């Protein structure tokens, strides 16, 4: 009899804790699903937003709102659309290159009519402050990509391209080039889908 009531007690405790956890899980799932879209937008606005805005200067829409996703194999890629002169002519996408101390995120804006690069900008990196970090804080490197065609060799001069590296930060510069090359490959691979999606915007 003694043993039975102890078992009952155990079961009761178990049920109560399980009930608490279940309700908590339900509440969290609700809050999460109702804030998810907004959080995604906030992250875009504050992390990638400033870069995208500078690249798409003069566009008539909000590239953060006009965005679409295309699945590229297992990865979903986000594209941001810039409208110039009433035409959705520019897409921006983010890819990563291998830097000196981790991945460098680079956003590349490409004109879909001419396949020229409108501009590039570094979003996230963990490069050495004062050396590699200049890829983000100064425009020396990113300015050189402006107006190049994505079919040009987008490499440093040492690697057979036309880009001057930041002195003291050749690995970082290589990483940025790598990211731009990545973007151009993704862009060419998905171009037909991109054009398809642009028609709907």
């Amino acid at each position, binding site marked *: 009899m003694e043993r039975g009531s102890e078992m009952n007690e155990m079961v009761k405790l178990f049920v109560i804790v399980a009930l*608490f956890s279940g309700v908590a899980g339900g509440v969290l799932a609700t809050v999460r699903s109702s*804030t998810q879209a907004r959080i995604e937008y906030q992250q875009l606005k504050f992390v990638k937003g400033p870069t995208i805005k500078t690249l798409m200067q003069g566009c008539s829409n909000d590239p953060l709102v006009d965005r679409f996703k295309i699945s590229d194999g297992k990865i979903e890629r986000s594209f941001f659309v810039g409208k110039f002169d009433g035409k959705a002519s520019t897409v921006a996408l983010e890819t990563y290159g291998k830097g000196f101390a981790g991945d460098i995120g680079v956003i590349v804006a490409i004109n879909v009519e001419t396949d020229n690069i409108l501009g590039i900008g570094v979003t996230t990196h963990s490069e050495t402050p004062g050396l590699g970090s200049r890829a983000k804080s100064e425009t020396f490197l990113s300015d050189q990509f402006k107006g190049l065609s994505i079919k040009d060799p987008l490499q440093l001069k040492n690697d057979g391209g036309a880009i001057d590296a930041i002195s003291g930060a050749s690995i970082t510069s290589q990483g940025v080039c790598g990211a731009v090359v990545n973007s151009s490959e993704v862009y060419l691979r998905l171009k037909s889908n991109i054009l398809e999606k642009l028609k709907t915007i």
Partner: protein
Amino acid sequence: MAKSVVQEFTKGLWAEIPPFRLVLGLCPILAVTKSVENGFGMGMATTFVLVCSNVLISLLRNVIPKKVRIACFIVVIATFVTVVELLMQAFLYPLFLKLGIFIPLIVVNCIVLGRAEAFAAKNGTVASLADGLGMGIGYTLALSLLAAFREILGNGTFTLPLVSTVIPVFPSSYQPFTFMIEAPGAFVGLGLMLCMMNMLGKK
């Protein structure tokens, strides 16, 4: 024992102001008081968690068995902390970027579990609400005060919370006492505050 609701509320503002009198919840007070904006934001987040968990726990105090009470309290607190984290990401993203890891760490802030265990589990809902609100506001005040002290000396500015307007306190010729916004400055600042509180409280 029969304190009025007003007394439960006001004790958190002075007589039992959490970091200075109870000396609880010191990790965030050392870590996030680099600017008034951060200190105030952290205080508000903690207040929200404190009020919600106090009310819910005092409502459920007769349902929660003694043996598993800590587990239940932590589940309740952790839920509210995650809610705060999500809401802050959705509505105050820049503040979330600054506070970062310290928001989830509210779960292990002694002051929240402390009030749940020492007060809400034994008192009525209204009293617990007053207690949580008082403690939370006291905590926010303490964080803001220390943050103001550190920011004014260490940076020569005062950042208005929520609107992020930076007001210069000293003229631009002021050479900032950067030590104060570094980590050791937090210890020194907190030490001075505790010392001052003890002097003021001395009969």
